[in-house]
Each structure stands twice: as structure tokens, then as C-alpha cells.
């Protein structure tokens, strides 16, 4: 038994889980073309959820702050991006790919800057006074979530809003009898880029070293003379911005958004963070991919089970690894 786990560990250990899941699904589904479509959809969904969840995981890991209001950033990102895209609808409809890209970039930048600003506000005004008090943190961030949802309702109204997509991301590629939506590839690419960026910053720079050290042992880093609270504001802002971008991408994926979007995604984000283990982006990526793939496979194989599939996945993983697959927080 030990030898088997040793060998598994050498080949990637828990990182093999998404592959194992995909292989299992391949056998169960039986039709390679639908399997490929589902896998791409699952990976794209996983990457978008990763964008939303990575910030939450890092924030908790570094400062022991559990932000229930995180999903507010997701909703705000979605609505800000949708508004920018709607304002630039002329550019989106144009046949010019350059104009398309400019409009899309502007929308994502708008969502990101909103996330940065809102993150700063949230951290300094809402969360700063209740460090080290989990009960009040949960309550206060919950209160902030209620207020943010109401603000969204007041500004954008309760009716669903259609999100415009850039022309060049519409449609699908047909390879053989497999059809792959271009938007999904784009979402996957953006998520992967964000992951690689985060990974490099965390593992290759001095700043990242400090963040990881802070996750490991905050007091020690403080004792060595680093201002970890400033670092934390930075992490909080980046995490919020990532959530907003994730929300913007999700808005484009769903194409019809309601103010309930944040609340719906929050459950998925929590499940991902719990599965992955708090404080590590590798774990979050793993959890996000597992959740994305499971949701799509189960949705195809047994639609009735689709709702509970994430819960079952979480329960199974918690029974096996109570702290998540790849926790950074001891």
C-alpha cells in the first residue's frame, strides 16, 4: 500500500485526480466526441471558478480571514463588465478583430480595477476592525454581502441582463465531429495565464516568498520586520480583482446574468476552496478543475444528480483528506 502511494506520489499524487476523473468519464460516456466537448467545457468552467476562488483561498491562508462577501466581487465584476460591453456594443459588433479585442480588454480592465478598488475599501473599512475574530468576521462579511447585493439590485435592477460577446469569440471550432466553443478556449487560456502568473509571482519573486512565509507563519514574518498588514491589503486587492475578472468571464459564458449570480457561484467557490485546501493556489486549481469536470460529466451522465454532485465530491474528499487535497495552512 505504501509503495503504491509512493509511486503515485512520484507521478504527481493528487494532481492525477482530474486525469483519473477524465479517464473514468471517458469509459462511462463511451462517445469520444461528447467526451471531448464535455471535457473542454469542464476545464473552462474550472478555470473560471479558479479565478474566483484563488483570492479567497489566499486571503484565508495569509490572514486567517474568511470573507463571505467574496461573491460580491464576482457579481460586481460581472455587472461592471456587462455594462462596459453594452456601452461598447458598436465595437463588439464590428467585423474588426482589433476593435473587438480592445472592447473586451477594456471590459476586463474595468472589472479588474473595480475589484482592486472594492477590495481596498472592503479590507480597510469592513474587515480591518474584526481581525482575529472569526464569528464577527463571518457576520460582518455576510452583512457586507447583503448590502452589496442590494446595491447591485438598486443600480442594475432585478431583471436579467444580456451580456454581449465580442464577435471573434462567438461560434465554435469543429474538429472532426467534436465542436468546441471558442469562448471556452478563451476562458481556459485566461485562467491558465492567471494561474501561471500567480504561480510565478508566488514562487519566483521576493514578494511571493513573503506571502508564502506569511501563510506558513505570520508572527515570524512580522518578527523579522516585514509589514505583513500591507502585504495583506495587496493580496486582498489582487484576490478581489481576480474574483471580479472571474465574474466578468462567467458573465460572458452565461450571457444572461441576474444579481443572484454571485450567490450561486459562492457555493461552488466554497466547495472548491474546501476541496483544494486553504491557502494554496495549486490546491485551488485542482479543486476548481475537479468541480468543473464533475459538474459537466455528471450533468451529461445523470442530470438528476448534477445538483448534488459537487456536494458528494466534497464529502468524499473531506472523508479522505479532512484538510483538503493540498492545504498550505497547517
Amino acid at each position, binding site marked *: 500500500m505504501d509503495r503504491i502511494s509512493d509511486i503515485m506520489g512520484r507521478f504527481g499524487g493528487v494532481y492525477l485526480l482530474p486525469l483519473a476523473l477524465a479517464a473514468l468519464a471517458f469509459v462511462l460516456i463511451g462517445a469520444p466526441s461528447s467526451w471531448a466537448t464535455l471535457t473542454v467545457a469542464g476545464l473552462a468552467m474550472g478555470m473560471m471558478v479558479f479565478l474566483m476562488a484563488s483570492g479567497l483561498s489566499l486571503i*484565508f491562508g495569509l490572514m486567517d480571514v*474568511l470573507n*463571505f462577501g467574496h461573491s460580491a466581487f464576482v457579481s460586481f465584476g460581472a455587472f461592471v463588465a456587462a455594462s462596459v460591453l453594452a456601452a461598447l456594443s458598436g465595437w463588439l459588433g464590428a467585423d474588426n478583430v482589433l476593435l473587438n479585442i480592445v472592447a473586451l480588454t477594456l471590459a476586463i480592465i474595468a472589472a479588474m480595477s473595480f475589484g482592486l478598488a472594492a477590495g481596498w475599501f472592503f479590507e480597510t473599512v*469592513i474587515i480591518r*476592525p*474584526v481581525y482575529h475574530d*472569526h*464569528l*464577527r468576521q*463571518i*457576520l*460582518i462579511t*455576510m*452583512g*457586507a454581502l*447583503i*448590502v452589496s*447585493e*442590494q*446595491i447591485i*439590485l*438598486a*443600480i442594475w435592477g432585478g431583471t436579467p441582463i444580456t451580456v454581449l460577446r465580442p464577435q471573434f469569440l462567438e461560434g465554435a471550432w469543429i474538429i472532426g465531429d467534436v465542436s468546441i466553443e471558442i469562448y471556452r478556449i478563451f476562458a481556459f487560456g485566461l485562467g491558465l495565464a492567471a494561474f501561471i502568473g500567480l504561480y510565478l509571482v508566488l514562487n519566483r519573486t521576493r514578494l511571493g516568498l513573503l506571502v508564502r512565509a506569511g501563510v506558513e507563519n505570520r508572527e515570524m514574518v512580522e518578527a523579522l520586520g516585514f509589514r505583513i498588514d500591507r502585504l495583506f491589503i495587496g493580496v486582498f486587492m489582487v484576490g478581489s480583482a481576480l474574483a471580479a475578472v472571474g465574474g466578468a468571464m462567467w458573465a460572458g459564458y452565461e450571457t444572461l446574468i441576474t444579481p443572484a449570480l454571485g*450567490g450561486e457561484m*459562492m*457555493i461552488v467557490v*466554497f*466547495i472548491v*476552496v*474546501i476541496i483544494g485546501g*486553504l491557502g494554496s493556489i495549486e490546491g485551488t486549481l485542482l479543486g476548481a478543475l475537479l468541480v468543473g469536470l464533475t459538474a459537466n460529466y455528471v450533468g451529461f451522465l445523470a442530470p*438528476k444528480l448534477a*445538483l*448534488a454532485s*459537487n*456536494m458528494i465530491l*466534497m*464529502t468524499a474528499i*473531506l*472523508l479522505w483528506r*479532512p*484538510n483538503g487535497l493540498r492545504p498550505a495552512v497547517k
Partner: protein
Amino acid sequence: MHSKSTYGTIAVKTAVLLIAALLLFAPFLFQDVRALEVAARICIFIVLVASYDLLIGYTGIVSFAHTMFFGFGAYGAAIALRQMGPGWDAVAIGALAGVLVSLVVATGVGLLSLRVKAIFFAMITLATASVALVLASQLSQFTGGEDGITYRVPDLFKPATKLMVDETGKVARLFGVKLNGKLAAYYFVFFTSLALFLLMLRVVAAPLGSVLKAIHENEARAEAIGYRVVAYRTFVFCLSAAVASLAGTIYAVWLKYTGPDTTLSFAIMIDILLMVVIGGMGTMWGAVVGAVLMVVAQYYLRDLMGAAAEATANIPLLPDLLDPDRWLFWLGIIFILLVYFFPRGITGTIMQKGAR
């Protein structure tokens, strides 16, 4: 909080007694349909909030699955009443089934969450509750889906039922109030709620209550003294789930309708949270005050906000925020300010007065 006879404590207890008296005589004091609706809702939410306070205030467990248990009780009664027809046996079986399901789920969630970090508990309960909500709207052959279930309740509670008749054979009046089934239904709600509330009051006054507080204050020390924290936590989670489930059954019998919006929705969870924090965590009295204030505000504050929105109609954004539908916005802000400045809530803060 342990001060027995500060004037603050006396003031709070007087207020609670006054509320109890008002609720007891509500049908005679406020003779309109809406007021009776408000009074019944207050009774049920006092029980629901008090049972939630057992978790959050006494033991320091944050759960977001409380409406799920409330829903189990309500749906248990609703399904039983629809399948078996109106009768007391259906109510009893529904209540029992609701409590059983609640106990099983609570034990399951409790045992699972004991293996993980305490902070996960809040997230896991939130996820579980959302699955329950989705299941209720999906399994429409059992639960009626989004539309919910309407059913008939035992004959005693029918508005046409005459509890007493006068000489002419019409329904008798006492102080101008018709002694009909509606009155019986209200007193059913009142007395069952009272019984459940007194039960919880007894629980927290017992040594068990002190152990729960000890766990809240310092978990490691409670464990070191020899109390099995894990067992106590699971027990109190099951107890509060069972009480919430019974409250759900009472609510189902009163409303004659059960749907996702009246029992399971996240909005109700937020209401409970607001009530507990506004009233004051860690005292049963807080649940009473919080529930009364919130329910009254829910029913009457919206009218006030509508008037305010009209008055400010030509100022940008303000009428949108003052819209009666936006009342949660203001409550959310009050909630945040309360958690900052008065973490003990209204009753906790008052009860501290005169302590030194």
C-alpha cells in the same frame, strides 16, 4: 451576563414579559387579519431564532443550514397533510418525520464537520442548505417545486369552525372577537411556540448551558476540564435542528402553504441572522426582542420606506435605495454597525447596564 439582578436585566425581562403578554392577548388587542399574521410570525420566529441562538450565541457555531431544518419540518407536515388529508395524525407524522430527517442530516453534517477545521463548518452548512433548496424546487412531484404545496389543515383550525355558539347559533364573540378556528390556530401557534421556548430556556439554565458557554469562551480549556467538546457540539446542533424543524411544522400548519420562499430560502436565513445579532447573541431574551423588531419592521417599515421614496423622488439614486424592496440594504448597514459597536446586540448591551 451572569449578573442576576442589574436594572438592565430587569428591564429586559420586563420587556420580554410585556411582549409575551401582548402576544397572548394579540387577537383581542389588534383586531385585524394582518396583525394576527404578524403576531403568529413573531411567535414562530422567536422559537426559530432562539434555537439558532443556541448554536451561534451559546456555543459559537456558525451554521447557515438553519432554514434547511425549518424547511424539513414544514415540508414534512405539508407532504403528510396533502397525502393523508387534514388530520392530527398527519400533523404528528409530518412533525416526527421532519424531526427525524433533521436529526439524521444534523448528525451527518456534524460528524463530517468534526473532522475538518471549525471554519469549514460555516461553508459546509451553506453548501448543504443550498443543495436542500435546489432539491426542494427540483423534486416537484414531492415538494410542488417552486410553487410549493397548499393543503388543508385539521378542521379545528378552519375559519368556519365555531368554537362556541351563542343562542342564535352564530359564532360567539368575546370582547368583539369571533371565537372561530382562526383563533384556535393562533393559540395553537402561541402555546406550542411558548412550550418550545420554555424548553430551550430550561436547557440553557441547566448545567448543559454552562458547558456550552464554556465551549464558546475557551474550547481548549473546556476540553481540558473533561468535557467532550465534540459530543456537546453535535448534541446542540441536533437539538437546535430538531427545534427548528418543529417550528417549521407549526409554521406549515399556520400558513396552510409551504414553499421554498416561506421556509427554505436564503432570505429567511439572513432574517434569522439579523434577528439574532440585533436582539443579542447569547441570551434567549435577545431572540425575543430581535424577532419582534424584525418582523414588525418587515411588515410596517416597508410602508414607511415607500413614503420616503416618494418624498425623495427627484434626487438621483436615493429613491432607488429607499424603495421598499431595498429595505435589506438599510438592515444590512445596521447589521454591520451593530456587529462593530454593539456585538452583544440590544439585550446584551442593556443587560450590561448597571452591572458595575
